[in-house]
């Protein structure tokens, strides 16, 4: 289960960021999502270089784990329209496997597509959709245990 889910527009501004309830310093997750763009950009650029133009449409959206962090694992996903999805998972959560992360991204992508298909949604606006919200919150850790503050 994720602790934070972020959707970032093509122009790199946030469309949607949701963190697990009870997290302290939510803005730190905003930073995490923001900084992951560095790696996403680099990965997308290298993908574009290695594959020919004809295959770019068929390329893998899932970018895998982005950069190492001791406490969290950060996964990235880029759509064809360069909308980025970022999922932050606690490093302690070792059960989560790679293909589960993939399926989470796929669900997010589908939910995002639904948002975009809404005729009342202005593309580029922040996502204010209940259905998207429910999809996202279904992937987020429901309630974080109040941990011993000594635990790092």
């Amino acid at each position, binding site marked *: 289960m994720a602790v934070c889910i972020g959707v970032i527009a093509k*122009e*790199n*501004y*946030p469309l949607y*960021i949701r963190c697990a309830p009870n997290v*302290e*310093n*939510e*803005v*730190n997750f*905003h*930073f995490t999502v*923001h*900084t992951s*763009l*560095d*790696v996403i950009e*680099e990965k997308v650029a290298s993908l574009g270089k290695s594959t020919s133009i004809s295959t770019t449409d068929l390329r893998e959206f899932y970018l895998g784990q*982005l*950069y*190492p*962090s*001791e406490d969290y694992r950060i996964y990235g996903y880029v759509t064809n329209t360069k909308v980025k999805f970022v999922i932050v998972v606690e490093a302690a959560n070792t059960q989560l496997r790679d293909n589960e992360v993939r399926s989470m991204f796929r669900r997010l992508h589908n939910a995002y597509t639904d948002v975009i298909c809404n005729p009342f949604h202005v593309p580029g606006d922040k996502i204010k959709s209940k259905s998207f919200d429910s999809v996202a919150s279904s992937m987020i850790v429901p309630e974080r245990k109040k941990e011993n503050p*000594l*635990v*790092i």
Partner: protein
Amino acid sequence: MANSITLPNELQCCPKPFVVLTGLDITYNAVHKTIWDAFSNNRRPDRLQVKFACLPGDHAFPRCKTKRSSYDWYIPKGLLKTKWMTKHLNEIPALVVVFFELDWDELAWRERHLACASRVQVVRTSLQGRTTKVAVVLIQKSTPLPPGEDMVAAERAAALCSACDLSSKSLFVLPHSDHLLGYIVRLESAFVELAQTYYHSELRRVKAHKEFLNKTTHQLLFPRHQFKIAFFSEFMQDASTALKHYRQSYTHIHELRSHATNNLEVKVVGGFVNYKICSLCFLKLNAPLDAINQFQRHVEQFKYQFGNPDLMFEHCAWLSQQYLLFADLFSNAIEQGLSAIQTQHPGFYYQQAAHYATLRRQHALSLCVSIESLNYPSPDPLAAESMDFFGQRPWRQGHQRIDPPDVAMENDGILALQKQELQLDHSWIIIPLISSAVTQFKKFHCPRLKRHLTIKMAIEYYHAEDYSKVIVLLCRATPAYRESRWCSILTQLVSIIFQCSYMLADVQNYLTSSFELLSSLSQLPSAKKKLIQENMFLILCGKLPKYVTLPSEIVSQNNKVCDNVVVPPAWEDLTASLENPRTLHVEMTSLVPFVECKARFSQPEFSIDTCICMEVFIRITCPEPIQFIELSVGLNNFDYDSACIISDTPGHGALYYKSQEIRKHVFEFPVDLQDLYKSIQVKNVTLKLGSETGRYILQLNWLKTDNEIDHEESDIINEIHSNQGTVDWESIKERKSTNVVERKSRLDVQVHHSSPALTNEAFPLTFVITSEEDLAENINILITLKPDDHDDSFLQAAHLSVDCDSLVRPSKTLEMELGCLKRKEKLKRTVYIRSSVPGAATVTVQTQYNVSNLSVQSVLVAGKQLKMISCPSKSSFNICFDVVEPFSFTAHLMSMNMESISSVYLGQSFLMLASLTTHSVWPIEVQSSQHNPPVEGVFSAMSYSQNDEVSVLASEGESLVKCLALVVPDSMEKTDTAELGLYTVRWKRYGSKNCTTETSLKLPTLTIRSFPISIDANFPAYGVLRKSIKVTYNITNKSKDFKIIEAGFESVEAFMFSGPKQTKIFLSPFDSHSIKCIFIPLALGYQALPKMQIRGIYQQHKGSTELVQKENIDNFCLHCLIPTHLYIKPMLSG
């Protein structure tokens, strides 16, 4: 505590064999000095890794402990002794070299060699019990002979060896001669070899201990011994063996039982071994991935071994240090040529080090409350003279049991550590770590991570209360977030700037950050926004602002700025009286402020006689209403500034905005004549806030650079309806520049013409100009032949003229001054265009005129009446038409017998048929056509009048044919060809009143042949049946040669014939001969005459007789005017 976890220097250096040189007097003996220098100086990396020390011969080396024969009753007191590494690195040599000056041919050999032996003995004694090797180097003056040749030397060497109890391999000779360094290098490698044997034996000695150990009591010795073996391997420069044993040591450390008492010791030594493993992997074995994996396992294994919860900060400090050491190793490896990637580079480790340092501070501060009341314990439990083991507590050294020996002592010790920790300023630990990380992230293309760290650094400065640095750092970081619209982060950052500038009483930053906090992007609650806005006005009026707490997530909760902040003394300056308000400039373009502004010209261009209309939109997003005192717009021409300003005093209302209001201000001003054809641009918009009586006047300045060109014609903006007030701000497009164009022409210019035009014709273009102006002056029409893009041949062949007849001064452009024209007056002008080739013509017509006394256009602007003296108007348009050929012309040559010929004979008449065929859609009237033969050559064979009748070629395809009889005179003899001259046609359009056009057509060139004789005959026009016809054939020799001609007649049925059937005629030059015949017609009608035949012509040319070819003769006869047939009439009856 800091001491117990720091990495000792001896661990960081790379162990090198330690070799001691004795017997060198480096202070007084120059030779010895050079030898020592050669050993110790300039140790480049390509030299062997050895550490040399020069010690006196009687130096006391550390005493050897008595060797333990059994470990049965030995209980180790710790993991790794503090002195062990230093001892082996710097104190116990692997080899002691005794230098002694002794030549083989020394006179006092006996005494000297005994002295040397005693020197060696002294060294041996001081090394008692050690296995340290001893070697002797004899410093000799002369170069030794090759081995085996110097018998004395061999003998004496053996004697010396036995005296000193040395093996022959440990005796060296160093000739003090030219090649000192070469000898030294060779000696060095021999020393290293000896040292290696020493370390090898030491290593085996340690290994041998293993069998005495048992797992229960000697658990601590397993890692220690493995560490020692690895360390000795390092001395031997055997990195892979060293790595193997360090790994084993590391595993043994993990097998140790960890508890509160030994926690720190295990961690510290574990960290040491980990450091060794990583450094070997990175720097020696080039296995960076192994190093990274090892480190990750290391951190994972030790991360949760907190030890005593009261010393949590210590654990964090240790973790932070582990990360820092690893990051340093990593970046060292990169300096040595390792390549790192964006997601795996030292920056991340520096960042983690900083992270743990921050946690360390947090934990330290959380202790703050509990121990504040306590005093530092005395006696100082930390005051131990020296530590025997790494990572142990000074107050209970060597204690290895689970429970502390003395609880009170333990508590005192912990308190002392805590007290020490609290005295640290952690910010200065964290900031350098972050700045190292920033450097790395910059190197590895992570701009956002770098920026994030910059912010972290700023927060550290905030904790360190260096507020001005915070502002500097954050101001550097914010633009990126502002650009990418990360409002959540931006709000947080600006909040910090806001608070810092409050602490510093930095008015400028305080106000700019207020602006941003009040903006729509800021996510502050509106109550806070209101407070901020109130404060802003307090400052403008010179009153002290109230302190506003902002919820800040990134600055940790226990920050020092609490609710009951005293107003910083710097603000006092604000209340001091000042005569005039100070003006502060704020650059708004780089902010996301609460007041936004857009400026646009209402049209992309304005004509010179109208007023420029500029609209400025202001949007206010702050929660409370706001009053500005002035709005002004700066254009690129300062002359307009006075027109683009609105001032307001409170209560007036023009610049009083409600919250969330969007208002449009319109500025109208006339254009200066000087700005014609120029572009007018908005340079900046300025709003003034404050009051003349207040403390500050804020100038909010928007720079409008015209970088994005968005001159969309279709941006019809939702007009603002003042009552509705709902305007989509985003849809307002700025138009920052406009062009000033000339007044639109109000002259009506019409052009009449009947195209297509014909080539060479003077094609009339009739201009009819009607004025809509009251009085148009200096009307000027410029007519230009417009060049074709593809082909300029047409332009070359075409001309313009006002006169059709003569086309005086034909030119490509034509300018007509037409003077003045009153309203509704008409003016007609005709211009002719003539082109000699067909094609498509484009003519540009430009009209220009001046208008004065524009009474109608006078406009009231700002109370002033506008007077325009004169202003030009201009218009231009194109006329296009085709030019086509009026007719085509062919000339056809025939013999007098009406047969087509391709060449003519001199002196023989021929016919030319000239035919004109019309192609024009217009009927053409051909007034005359005339053959103009050239001065020399062809002339008309018959003299007849050329004044022919006017003929009209009405429809396309009609032809006019004229037949001319021509002859080439004999005088043209010399040439092969002759010009036929020109054929001139005078024509015009049928019914046109214009002058006629004269077209000269070129006639083809004739091919001329000559023949030596000419024949002619005089025939009547007809014959009468049975009436004799007398015919004389004249044959003339036209050459200077004598000729014999064979001629004859072939009889025919229709004629009776008398004359020579066959004759030979002798002709002298230019002589002629007549053949007289009589024909009597026997049949009626068109009858063939007896054919006269020239059978052969012999000419005498330069003494020889030659025959003219038969074909030539036949061909010639064809051209002759000798009729072949004759019409025979019946006899007239009666």
